[in-house]
């Protein structure tokens, strides 16, 4: 339905540059998630697309048309807000039909469209209620229904699930994914929650300090993070990241010294420089009596299907180990683990990923 092009888009508030030089092509029917920590400029970027925030420089095209100066409603987009932003004095039906009413759509057509959308979202029985009489999840549905009714070119979501409890959030994630398939619509979704990004996106755009850090499909970003920041941001529990300054090089291998008792053999990485960061996903660590690393068990978290073990290996941060089988470990006792060298990541002093030498 819509193809969004962002060309060199920037936004500054006074001297503060919130968004810098963003180039992004959002294809028709694509589900793009903008993700990053708070203050990274993701919401500002979304609001510029929506037309709620002016664009300081750069161009925004929707289906090839430049829309920089257009009013929000003239861009043919719809948005779901973090607080839902329902009109408290209107019924559900009036809320959902407000845009059509302003556009001068006749009452019966309006009613039919609202009814269709309400049916999709199981809201038919609530059309006469006011937002204050609805639960959080129902309000969320009305906010989504309000956007569906307008049949927009693209849907924008600004952290829509952050006000829901964990269970409802999981359920809504699935519903939004289903909705994306059914409506075959372009969607731009802002969140700080990497789980939402990983589960729903066709493509994730990781933002940091107003710039794009990396973008790509979720699995790709998870497996090949371009920077230590992306590596640490995506994935739960977090990737283990250790800053290392002591490196021993010999002709065929490189050994990094993590702590007094622990050193880790790197494979064939062309490590140069003195300061690197080693990244190890918790699932890339396994308990093994012949492992390289040894540490004291500090904390064990049983999550049912899996178990997280936090090891003190003498570094500043604990090493997180993810086990899929329940393992009998005792707090305070030493545990030996092994790291799969093919699943390690190395980042240079600037946090950029270092590519492995071709074998």
């Amino acid at each position, binding site marked *: 339905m819509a193809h969004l092009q962002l060309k060199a888009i920037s936004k*500054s*508030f006074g001297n503060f540059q919130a968004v810098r030089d963003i180039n992004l092509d959002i294809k028709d029917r694509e589900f793009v998630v903008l993700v990053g920590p708070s203050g990274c400029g993701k919401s500002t970027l979304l609001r510029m697309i929506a037309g709620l*925030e*002016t*664009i*300081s420089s750069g161009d925004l095209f929707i289906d090839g048309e430049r829309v920089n*100066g257009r009013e929000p409603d003239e861009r043919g987009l719809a948005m779901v807000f973090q607080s839902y932003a329902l009109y408290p004095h209107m019924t559900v039906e009036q809320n959902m039909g407000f845009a059509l009413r302003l556009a001068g759509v006749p009452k019966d057509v309006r009613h039919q469209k609202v009814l269709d959308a309400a049916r999709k979202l199981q809201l038919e029985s609530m059309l006469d209620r006011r937002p204050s009489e609805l639960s959080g999840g129902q309000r969320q549905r009305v906010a989504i229904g309000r956007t569906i009714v307008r049949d927009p070119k693209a849907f924008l979501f600004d952290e829509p699930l952050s006000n829901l409890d964990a269970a409802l959030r999981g359920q809504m994630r699935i519903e939004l994914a289903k909705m994306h398939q059914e409506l075959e619509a372009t969607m731009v979704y802002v969140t700080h929650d990497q789980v939402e990004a990983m589960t729903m996106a066709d493509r994730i755009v990781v933002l940091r300090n107003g710039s794009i850090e990396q973008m790509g499909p979720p699995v790709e970003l998870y497996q090949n993070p371009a920077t230590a920041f992306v590596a640490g941001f995506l994935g739960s529990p977090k990737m283990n990241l250790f800053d290392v300054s002591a490196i021993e090089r010999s002709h065929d291998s490189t050994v990094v010294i993590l702590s007094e008792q622990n050193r880790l053999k790197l494979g064939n990485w062309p490590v140069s420089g003195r300061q690197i960061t080693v990244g190890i996903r918790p699932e890339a660590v396994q308990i093994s009596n012949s492992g390289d690393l040894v540490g004291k068990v500090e904390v064990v978290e049983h999550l049912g299907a899996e178990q997280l073990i936090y090891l003190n290996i003498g570094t500043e941060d604990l090493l997180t180990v993810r086990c899929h089988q329940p393992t009998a470990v005792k707090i305070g006792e030493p545990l030996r683990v092994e790291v799969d060298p093919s699943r390690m990541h190395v980042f240079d002093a600037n946090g950029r990923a270092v590519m492995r030498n071709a074998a």
Partner: protein
Amino acid sequence: MMASNEAIPADVVQSEADSTPDKDAPGVKTAPLLAPSVVLLLAWMIVPLGMTLWFSFQRYNLLSPNISGFAGFNNYAFLLANGALWNAIFNTILLVGGVLIATLVLGLVCAVLLNQEFAGNSVARLFCILPFFVMPTVSALVWKNLLMHPVNGLFAWISKSLNLPVVDWFTDLPLFSIGIIVAWQWIPFATLVLLTSLQSLDREQVEAARMDGARGWSLFTNITLPHLCRSLTIVAMIETIFLLSIFAEILVTTAGGPGNSSTTLPYLIYKIAMLDWNVGIASAGGVVAIILANIVALFLIRTIAHTLERQ
């Protein structure tokens, strides 16, 4: 009357940044929306103020239209040399200060009591704030006649039944009596503001203090009172602004007397203007009153502008 040059709050700066730098920005012209209010208030401020200032330097008496012309500082000199002005200023300070202390203390007592759980406390609150809605002329006359009349008043009867001397309130204690009436009218205001403030006191903070061992009086002085501090300041300043203009209560009870013993600055100016018809001197008095009010206003405006920034 005064412009504030304090720093513009951050949120205003931000919205300003939102709405100006881009030529594409769709904007709303606010000038036509603001114009009616601003023009009206500007006229209301400048015209009479200018006239007062102008008259204060003129020889101008409506009873003797032949005398006119520039008076220089004569009107001010006459006023300042005249004991009546200083007496009036003294009375004003006494009245405002006394009423202020009374309303803050009693208002605090009322607020704390009404904040307790007891049967019918919401009805009690309605009756407690009743005096605030009584027009000043009514309250003054009810107090003067029905309550404080030396022969037929309720207070006289109470004194007599207790074998106490009967007080002729408006003859023996004129300013004090007016103070009682005014305080009665303004206690509800203090009560309401402080009650609102009390109810916004964080429950968890109180509970934390109780876990730490604070109770009763120590809870009140260590937690409640500091919390009320800002509200008490605001009540004091707003009341001062209104109390500096107390007029009707004096007019219908003592008319400033006996002698000048209950003449305040507003009442003195009223007498010079509306009874002596001396425009020049009354205007000079008006300027003095404006200066006095602005000293208080300055502090009040600072405080309120500060809350605007915090929002």
